């Protein structure tokens, strides 16, 4: 099986797109929050690879062409952000305080939980960049001497989790303001959370994109201080 697929440039992309279509279909049909299209498609891809006996390496040799678009797509997040610039200027204080408190809550919370679990320094710094976007997170984990593979896995799990649970969290904590929702999604679960924010509305999407960039930069600034704590 692996051999047939190894020769194909299109199989990985095709599997991913079919999985996402199934995810969209299930979401439309049943509408539960847990039937998040992204989560569903990831599960389908993993099951498909396992049952067809395709290795991840073979799948990704084709699927990487989807990931290739991630940088230009992130650059494009500036467009909805620009369209909400007035709102951003008017709420500058709320935006900055929101993202700053969220970033510090993330770093401090990880420090507390890692000490409770008795993590060593390497395991602790592996977890530190977990809330921010993968590209910045990898750089931080490398620089602090963390285990990069785990950092990437944790960042992705965080993103998917944030994407799936956002509506529930907003309901429980009575977060109704679109600006606050967007900032919360971007700060807690980076670009994958932003994908959910964009579905919620233009203000949510713009604020979430902004939060991804700002939270990433703030984490770069604060992380070396926190790294010395364990």
């Amino acid at each position, binding site marked *: 099986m692996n051999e047939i697929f190894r020769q194909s440039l299109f199989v990985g992309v095709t599997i991913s797109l079919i999985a996402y279509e199934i995810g969209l279909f299930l979401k439309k049909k049943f509408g539960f929050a847990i039937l998040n299209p992204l989560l569903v*498609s990831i599960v389908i891809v993993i099951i498909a690879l396992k049952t067809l006996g395709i290795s991840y390496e073979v799948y990704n040799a084709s699927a990487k062409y989807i990931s290739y678009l991630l*940088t230009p797509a*992130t650059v494009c997040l500036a467009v909805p952000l620009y369209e909400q610039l007035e709102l951003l200027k008017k709420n500058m204080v709320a935006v900055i305080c929101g*993202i700053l408190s969220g970033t510090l809550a993330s770093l401090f919370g990880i420090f507390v939980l890692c000490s409770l679990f008795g993590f060593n320094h390497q395991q602790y710094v592996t977890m530190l960049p977990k809330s921010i976007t993968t590209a910045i997170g*990898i750089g931080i984990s490398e620089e602090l001497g963390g285990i990069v593979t785990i950092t990437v896995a944790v960042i*992705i799990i965080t993103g998917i989790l944030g994407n799936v649970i956002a509506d529930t969290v907003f309901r429980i904590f009575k977060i109704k303001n679109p600006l606050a929702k967007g900032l919360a999604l971007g700060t807690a679960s980076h670009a994958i959370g932003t994908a959910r924010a964009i579905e919620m509305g233009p203000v949510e999407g713009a604020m979430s994109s902004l939060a991804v960039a700002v939270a990433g930069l703030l984490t770069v600034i604060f992380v070396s201080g926190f790294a010395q704590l364990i």
Partner: protein
Amino acid sequence: MKFLRQFMIILLLSFLGEVLKMFIPLPIPASVYGLVLMLVCLMTGILKTSQVKDAAFFLIEIMPVMFIPAAAGLIDSWVVLRPLLLPILVITVVITVFVMAVTGRVAQMIAQKRGIKNE
């Protein structure tokens, strides 16, 4: 042709982001530099929204799909992840909810207070 020209501008900014990344020794990805460049171009009027908007919104709309390959990579990191799975999952769930709640509440509180003052 419209899409091609818009895509060209977006890729050009992505490339300039890569160039900045090569010269600035910080763990900041090319995409963030590119985002800032795009924002600056729009704010200064070098670019009009209409010159990039259609391609930009298309790329943003299909963005969730772009995370599937990386996430499917969890298959390969499973071996490293497994021994630490329980604490890692607990930390991930608790912190994600915590950060989302803190950010959302703080931003909402300030935004509402200022909103009332402005009116």
